[in-house]
C-alpha cells in the first residue's frame, strides 16, 4: 500500500516561521474531481522527486472565480479574487504554480490589477524549468516510442501563447509526438471553457468534445496528452463516447512523466 503523500500547507510553514519557494495552487478540479486529483498527486510526486520546497493553501484556497467571470458574473469573480488575494498576500506569496490553465490565466492576468502580483507558472512550464535546472530528469521509460498527441488547452495556448513547454516535456519522454490537424494557435477547444463545463450545451448537432476527440483519433494516438483537468475530463468522455477507452488513454503531461518514472 502506498503511503499517504506529504503535502505541506502554508499554515504549517507559517507556524514554523518558514516560507516555501513556490505555492502549488491546486484549483477546484484538482482538489475535488476524482480524475483531476490523480493529476494533482502525480504533480506532487514530481515536486518531491525534484526536491522542490512547496506548499499548498489547502482549506484556505478558494475558486479563482474563472468560471464566474466567464459566465458574466464579474461581481462573484471579483469577490473571489479579493478573498484569494488577501490570503496570498497575507502569506507573502511570490511564486505560484498550478496544473490548471484557467487558474493560471486568471491569477497571472486578471489578479494583478486587483492587487495580486505573483510570478505564475503552468505546471508544464515549471516542470520544464526543473528539467533545465537539472533538478528533474525526464526520460523515455514506458512511453518511449508511443504515439502521443497533445491537445492544447485554450487558456494555456491561445490565451497565453504557451505551446512548447508541454511538447518539450513530451519530446523528452522520447514519445512519437503527432500533431492534430488543428493544433497550437488553431487548436480546437475541448468544449469546457466559459462555464460550459457546468451546464448542458445549447442545441446543436454534436458535442464539442466529440468533435475534438474525432480530430485526435484521426492521428491514431495511443495516448492523448492534456494539460488541463477540464480538457482531460472532456477528452476522456469523448474517448468513452467513441468506445475507445481500451486503446486510447487520456493523460496529463505530469502523469505521463510520473508514470514513466514509476512514481
Amino acid at each position: 500500500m502506498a503511503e499517504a503523500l506529504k503535502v505541506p500547507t502554508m499554515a504549517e510553514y507559517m507556524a514554523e516561521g518558514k516560507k516555501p519557494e513556490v505555492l502549488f495552487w491546486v484549483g477546484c478540479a484538482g482538489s475535488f474531481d476524482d480524475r483531476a486529483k490523480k493529476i494533482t498527486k502525480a504533480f506532487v510526486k514530481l515536486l518531491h522527486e525534484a526536491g522542490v520546497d512547496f506548499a499548498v493553501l489547502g482549506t484556505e484556497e478558494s475558486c479563482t472565480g474563472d468560471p464566474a467571470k466567464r459566465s458574466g458574473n464579474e461581481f462573484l469573480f471579483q469577490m473571489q479574487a479579493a478573498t484569494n488575494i488577501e490570503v496570498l498576500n497575507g502569506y507573502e506569496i511570490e511564486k505560484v504554480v498550478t496544473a490548471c490553465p484557467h487558474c493560471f490565466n486568471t491569477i497571472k492576468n486578471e489578479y494583478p490589477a486587483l492587487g495580486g502580483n505573483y510570478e505564475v507558472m503552468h505546471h508544464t512550464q515549471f516542470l520544464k524549468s526543473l528539467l533545465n535546472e537539472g533538478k528533474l530528469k525526464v526520460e523515455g521509460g514506458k512511453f518511449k516510442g508511443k504515439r502521443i498527441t497533445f491537445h492544447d488547452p485554450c487558456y494555456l495556448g491561445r490565451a497565453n501563447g504557451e505551446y512548447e513547454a508541454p511538447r518539450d516535456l513530451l519530446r523528452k519522454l522520447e514519445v512519437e509526438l503527432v500533431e492534430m490537424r488543428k493544433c497550437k494557435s488553431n487548436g480546437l477547444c475541448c468544449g469546457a471553457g466559459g462555464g460550459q463545463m457546468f451546464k448542458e450545451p445549447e442545441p446543436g448537432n454534436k458535442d464539442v468534445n466529440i468533435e475534438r476527440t474525432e480530430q485526435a483519433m484521426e492521428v491514431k494516438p495511443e495516448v492523448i496528452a492534456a494539460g488541463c483537468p477540464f480538457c482531460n475530463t472532456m477528452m476522456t468522455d469523448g474517448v468513452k463516447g467513441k468506445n475507445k477507452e481500451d486503446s486510447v488513454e487520456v493523460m496529463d503531461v505530469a502523469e505521463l512523466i510520473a508514470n514513466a518514472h514509476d512514481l
Partner: protein
Amino acid sequence: MQIIAQVLFLVALVAGIGFFIRNIRRLVRNIKLGKEVDRTDNKGERFAKMARIAFGQSKMVKKPVSGFLHVIVYVGFVIINIEVLEIIIDGLFGTHRILSFMGGFYDVLIASFEVLALLVLIGVIVFWIRRNLLNIYRFLSRELKGWPKNDANYILYFEMVLMVLFLVMNATDYQLQLNGAPHYASEAGITGAFPISQFLLPIFDGMSNATLIIIERAAWWLHILGILFFLNYLYYSKHLHILLAFPNVYFSKLRPQGEMNNLQSVTDEVKLMMDPDADPFAAPAEEEEGAEPEKFGASDVFDLNQVQLLNSYTCTECGRCTAECPANQTGKKLSPRKIMMDTRDRVEEVGEIINTKGKYEDNGKQLLDDFILREELWACTTCNACVEACPVGIDPLSIILDMRRYLVMEESAAPNELAIAMTNIENNGAPWPYNQQDRLNWAKEN
C-alpha cells in the same frame, strides 16, 4: 467642349468626395455612441502590430489560397489607384497623361499597372468562383443570406468592370497614339507601355479615330466615376475594412488573449464591501443625486465601447472566426461573425434614427434579443479561436462577454445549471457542492 468636360469632372469629384466626407462623419459619430476606452498606450507596439497585420496582411496568409489572392487584389488595387492621381489631374486640366514627363519610369509604372490589373481580374474571378460555386463552409452560413452575399458579389463584379475599363482605356489610348490622333499623340513618341492592353488592339481594328475617342473617353469617365462610386459604397458595405482595418488593428487589445477586463465599477463596490471600516449605510449617499447607477454589461450598442463598435464596422464578413468556432462547428446557433454583423446593423439602425430625428429615440429595440439571441451568447466556450482567426484584429468574444455580464448581473438570467455552479462558488468556494473544509482531502486519499 473641353471646358464643359472639365467642369463636369470637377462637379463629380467634389460631389463624390463631399458625400464620402459626410459618410465618414456619420461613421465617427456612430462609433462615438460607444463608451470611451483608453488605447493610447504602447504606441510603438501598436504601430508595429498595425504594420504587420493590417499592412503586412500576416493573418490573411494563414489561409494560403485566399490569403495569396487577397494580397494580389489588395496590392493591385492600392497601386492602380496611383493612376487615379493622374486621372484626376488630367480631368481637371484637360491634359493627356500629365505624368508622362517621367519618361522611362512612367512606362514602367503604366506597364506594371496593367500587369496588376490583369492579376486583380484573375484574382477577383477566382474569388467569385470560391464564393459562389465551391461549397466553402464559411460562405454558407445563415447570416450571409441576402444583402451580405450580394454585397460581396457586387464588389467582385465592380472590380472586374473597373479593371476591364482600365485596360480598354489604355488600349484605345494606345491605338489613338499609334494613329497619331491630335491630343493623344506626342512628339516624343508613344507615352506609356501597354504589355497587356496591346492584346486588345485587334478589337479596335479599323475603327475611326472619332469612335476610338468615344470609347476611350467613355472608359475613362466610367473608370473615374466608378472609383468615386466605390468610395461612397464603402460605408454601406463590408468593404469598409479597406480603410478601417488600419485603425482597428492599431486599437486592438495588446494584452494576452486570455485576459478579460476587470470592471472598475465592480471593483469599487467589492472594495467597499470588503472594507471593515466602511459604513454600510453610507454607500448610497456617495452616489450623486439622481445619477443612474452604472449598468453592468451590455444590452445595447451604447453599453459597448468604441473599439467594439469600430470592430463591427471593420468586420470583413469573411467568416474565418465562425469557421474556427467550436460552437458553430457543432451546429450551435452561435457565429462570431454574426455577433459582429448584428452589432453593426444595430448601430447603423441607431445612426439612421439620429440622421432623421436629430437624436436617438427609443425604437423599442436593442442589441440583445432583437439581434443577438441568448442562445448564441450561452454557447460560447470563450476559447478565443475567433479572436485568433480574425485577419483584422476583431474581438467578438469581448462583446459576448459583456452581454453575458448584462444577463447575469442585471437580469440574473444565467442558465439554471450555471446559476447553481455560481451559488456553489459563492458558498463553498468551488463550482461543485463540496465543502471548502474538504479541499485537502485528496492528500490523504490513496
